[in-house]
């Protein structure tokens, strides 16, 4: 899967395929194992950059505000995302706290930061040869960024508590929900096939 020699190498079955010129929403798949090799995207770099900026704001909102507030027996408790990770730590599960902090806070943050860094100056980075490194880091971090799973986990906890207490969904959970399509869009744009293809069209 690359373009320096106008070809793709299937990552799953090693077949060498000629790279296709794709129009928007067109997919190219490996002729032997069927894995998706590339897809045409129509978004411009400016649009992707705008989405990355929005994602950064949503990430800040997600961390700054409470996720859920709960009233039980006349007492009210609310928690932020980092507060939730810290609570695990104070209850004797520091490793678990670390896992939650890394996958739900740090990895998405780094993912968005790298997206901004890459999209902000694609051409300069490509010239100085840093682009490849940045894209590699993005791809690695992305695997451990689990905002989507966290969001669903939150919903499960809300359903579990709904019968027992009064719940208010906080701004951070809405931000979390809004962050999901933004991250999906960034993943579509920050792909080697797209960034190294020739960003004359970007």
């Amino acid at each position: 899967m690359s373009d320096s020699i106008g070809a793709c190498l299937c990552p799953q079955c090693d077949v060498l395929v000629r790279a296709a010129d794709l129009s928007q929403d067109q997919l190219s798949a490996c002729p032997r194992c069927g894995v998706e090799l590339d897809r045409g995207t129509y978004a411009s770099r400016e649009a992707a950059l705008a989405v990355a900026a929005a994602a950064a704001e949503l990430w800040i909102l997600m961390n700054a505000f409470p996720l859920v507030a709960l009233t039980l027996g006349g007492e009210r408790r609310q928690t932020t995302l980092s507060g939730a990770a810290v609570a695990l730590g104070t209850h004797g599960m520091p490793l678990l706290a670390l896992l939650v902090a890394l996958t739900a806070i740090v990895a998405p943050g780094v993912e968005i930061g790298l997206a901004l860094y890459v999209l902000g100056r694609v051409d300069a980075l490509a010239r100085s040869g840093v682009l490849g490194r940045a894209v590699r880091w993005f791809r690695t971090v992305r695997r451990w960024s689990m905002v989507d799973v966290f969001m669903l986990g939150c919903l499960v906890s809300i359903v579990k508590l709904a019968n027992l207490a009064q719940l208010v969904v906080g701004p951070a959970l809405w931000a979390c929900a809004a962050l999901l399509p933004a991250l999906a869009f960034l993943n579509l744009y920050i792909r080697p096939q797209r960034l190294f293809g020739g960003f004359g069209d970007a």
Partner: protein
Amino acid sequence: MLDGSNLALGQRTGLALCRGCLEICEIGDRASTRCRRCGELVHARIPRSLEKTAAYLAAAAILYVPANVLPVMHSSSVLVQQDDTILSGVVYLFGSGSWPLGLLVFVASIMVPLLKILSLGVLVWMSARRSREHPLARTRLYRVVDFIGRWSLLDIYAVTMLVALVRMDAVASVQPRLGALAFAAVVVLTLLAAQSFDPRAIWDPVDGDDRCL
């Protein structure tokens, strides 16, 4: 089409894919090379892929037992003291009327880790035997396993939120228990197992080239 006899393959043309940035690198007969685009160390195949995957799987399989037997959390209130395992959490969701969510948690937390360990086990076993059977089906199985694995962390996040929210010391509180740690370890280990498995090991025996592996 399935047998690669007439196909240009990376290993026959001396090319290797960089897993970092998907660049095609000329590797020839060398064991490794540096990707000129991202600086990643490139190998024709993930080194010791099957051994690494098997090791992660073995660790995950062992921890799967305490992850399901030990309680993941302890709830205490004025009326009840209760230990909950993953399964009792699912039963509670079914009982409290939200069966779709119960089903979701059951699939994500109990079915997926188990099927993932079994599937990757079969993939490693068949590749180690250099089986030529059903390469396409096995590649698809790998894709499903790779795609679905992360969703198992769902229950860990749910427990995290319960612990953080329910802490009215006198009235009610929820505390995490060792089962949660074991369960999180199972999920992380299966994620690492899926990442270290090289799906090209499924096709190498089909292509009849013994240079790799």
